[in-house]
């Protein structure tokens, strides 16, 4: 074993395992494509004229369209993993981290509190439409910084810096509520491109292991 530094620490082992797992770029590509889909589906709603049928009903149908795309993506992801990843690095299902569940619950709580606050004070609040882009950039940056520190992935810091830059650009351009979508789209394209490059490198570096699962008398578990 090359790294027996702290094998009894499950947190350290998990971080190491996740870093190893994120080498293939598949998660990054998936998230990037999902952001692009989100942007591609919701952004046209801001440009459609209100009087038309499409303009009136687009917002109603777009979440269903996004959900259908997400289901199709999950199915594709399963097939891609089975075909390209498992034969190379093996099959593994990670346990959901307790911190992830806690963060999800806290995030939902904050979002609900903010929504309630906006609903309650909306008459006295100034126009916040310009703040959507920078706010989305800030949220993205915070998530990337957290991921970069937790999983020790330095390139996440670049993604965080890019999301801040995109947020600032939407503010300078005077984009309204659509600014958040532009930030999401920009991040989606970057992540998808980076993920594809990472995956290409991964496939080149990791050949398919043919004897990994062969059964023999000497090694009954091999």
């Amino acid at each position, binding site marked *: 074993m090359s790294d027996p530094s702290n094998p009894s620490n499950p947190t350290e*082992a998990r971080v190491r395992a996740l870093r190893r797992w994120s080498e293939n770029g598949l998660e990054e590509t998936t998230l990037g494509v999902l952001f692009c889909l989100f942007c591609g589906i919701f952004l046209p709603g801001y440009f459609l004229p209100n009087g038309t049928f499409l303009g009136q009903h687009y917002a109603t149908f777009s979440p269903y369209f996004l959900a259908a795309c997400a289901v199709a993506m999950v199915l594709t992801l399963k097939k891609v993993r089975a075909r390209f990843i498992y034969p190379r690095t*093996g099959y593994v299902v990670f346990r959901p981290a307790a911190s992830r569940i806690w963060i999800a619950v806290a995030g939902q709580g904050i979002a609900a509190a903010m929504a309630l606050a906006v609903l309650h004070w909306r008459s006295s609040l100034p126009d916040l439409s310009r703040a959507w882009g920078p706010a989305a950039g800030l949220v993205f940056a915070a998530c990337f910084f957290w991921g970069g520190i937790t999983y020790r992935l330095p390139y996440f810091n670049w993604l965080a810096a890019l999301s801040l830059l995109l947020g600032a650009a939407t503010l300078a351009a005077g984009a309204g509520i659509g600014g958040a979508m532009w930030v999401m789209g920009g991040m989606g394209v970057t992540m998808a491109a980076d993920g594809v490059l990472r995956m290409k490198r991964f496939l080149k570096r990791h050949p398919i292991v043919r004897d990994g699962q062969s059964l023999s008398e000497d090694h009954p578990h091999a």
Partner: protein
Amino acid sequence: MPELDRVIHEQARLAIVTLLATVEEADFLYLRQATELTKGNLSAHLARLEAAGYVEIEKAFRGKIPMTLARLTPEGLAALKTYRKEMTALLNLSKNASKGLRKRSRVAAVRPVAARPLAAPQRA
């Protein structure tokens, strides 16, 4: 003095159990790459862990590919937790012992200087 679990105390088995504690399940290939053990070694250690009831082995097929899935049992997880607790207690014991040793050696180094008699006045 706590007695360490010999099954887990071995380095390779400790790595396997620790890895399995972080995942729901993993196959033989993943474990082999993550621990960097040879096929034979990993197989032998898994057999030992299975015999101790710490790991559950399941032969399965993913499409046409046969795979050996390994999962940590609740007994295995409990054993790992106990091992960590006992190891931490032992390490704390050694930490305290070395602290005491350092303190004593500091006192021993200071004492002769304090006890040294004053030099006699030199004659002109």
